[in-house]
């Protein structure tokens, strides 16, 4: 079973994302900010990170930079999931090592499409 770390300061968003990802057969762990997420990654890297941008303590972009420098930290697929929906932020995320980018609000179809896009789930699974 693949693992996904959901990083978002909203417990509601984490809960929705968890439900969707478990439906896609991921084992889900949660973190409420970048710093807590980094602690989790230092113990064990997940296969995927669904990552909010704006969070207290450490934001998503800073977290991604730290995580990418961990041994093996280039492996996890990072999918941003944020209300920062402008070109400047998307470009910054991609050049900083993000694999995909979801602009909130999101739903099951968008998550499935984006995860299929980066090879986390088979393409067929993203359909009907």
């Amino acid at each position: 079973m693949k693992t996904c770390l959901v990083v978002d300061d909203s417990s509601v968003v984490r809960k929705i994302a968890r439900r969707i990802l478990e439906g896609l057969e991921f084992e889900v762990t949660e973190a409420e900010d970048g710093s807590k997420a980094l602690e989790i990654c230092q113990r064990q890297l997940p296969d995927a990170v669904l990552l909010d941008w704006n969070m207290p303590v450490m934001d998503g972009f800073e977290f991604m930079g730290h995580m990418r420098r961990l041994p093996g930290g280039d492996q996890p697929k990072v999918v941003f999931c944020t209300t920062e929906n402008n070109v400047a932020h998307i470009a910054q995320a991609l050049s900083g090592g993000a694999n995909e980018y979801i602009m909130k609000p999101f739903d099951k179809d968008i998550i499935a499409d984006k995860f299929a896009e980066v090879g986390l789930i088979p393409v067929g699974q993203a359909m009907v």
Partner: protein
Amino acid sequence: MTPTEYEYLRKFLKDNSGLDLSADKQYLIESRLLPLARKAGLSGIGDLVQKLQGGSRTVITDVVEAMTTNETFFFRDKVPFDHFRDTIMPEIIKARAARRSIRIWCAAGSTGQEPYSLAMCLKEMGAALTGWRIEIIATDLSQEVLEKAKAGIYSQFEVQRGLPIQMLMKYFKQTGETWQVNPELRAMIQHRQLNLLHDFAQLGTFDVIFCRNVLIYFDQDTKINIFNRLARQIEPDGFLVLGAAETVVGLTDTFRPIPERRGLYKPNDPRVAAAKPALAGAAPRMAAMAGR
């Protein structure tokens, strides 16, 4: 599907989603629910109705979703676009090296996602097509849908379905809450109103015809009629691309499936097709519906 099953589904959908189907929408139910039934390992609509009556929650959700989503998205189903890039285009590029021109028809272009996806594929091929004349003609029945396709303006939700983020950044411009396809890509496509039931010989001959998820709305005789007319608009070495739930097999000999390339067809030599007894060529019976 028996009349009783149809009535059950009508009432079920009305109660569960507000979707109000008139008495003659059997084809719509079949086109949406048959793939779902097969995916669930059921033999057909009848079995699916039994599952619904049994109160299976996952089936209930799946049926409502399949019936109420009326959308198309970029690179829909992925595989046809992989075939386009890896099988169709390399062959066409070789075959047309002398005249350096390609004509593509999206026969159910809908709101534009399919023709724009093809245009992006072609752009991504870069130098291989430098100096080539490329024509993409996108047709749809509905003028309203064509206007949307022409404008190339999509909501944030629409650009997140099937479109890789790098493609969004490369080929779209953000304007407030919406995203518009850039002018260079828009200029690659001509949008025209067309009813597939009517004569389309005036469009000329094509190297590639995408005709996906529209024929499912027609009855068998109409499908045969359209296939036979499509065969006259395609180059002898051209390609026809159908939707995942569609096939020519058992309907016409004018096209043959390409082995191991699901959804991909080549025209048969007309003499081969003519040698077999002609299948019904009856006039189209059903009013056309725009493909989505």
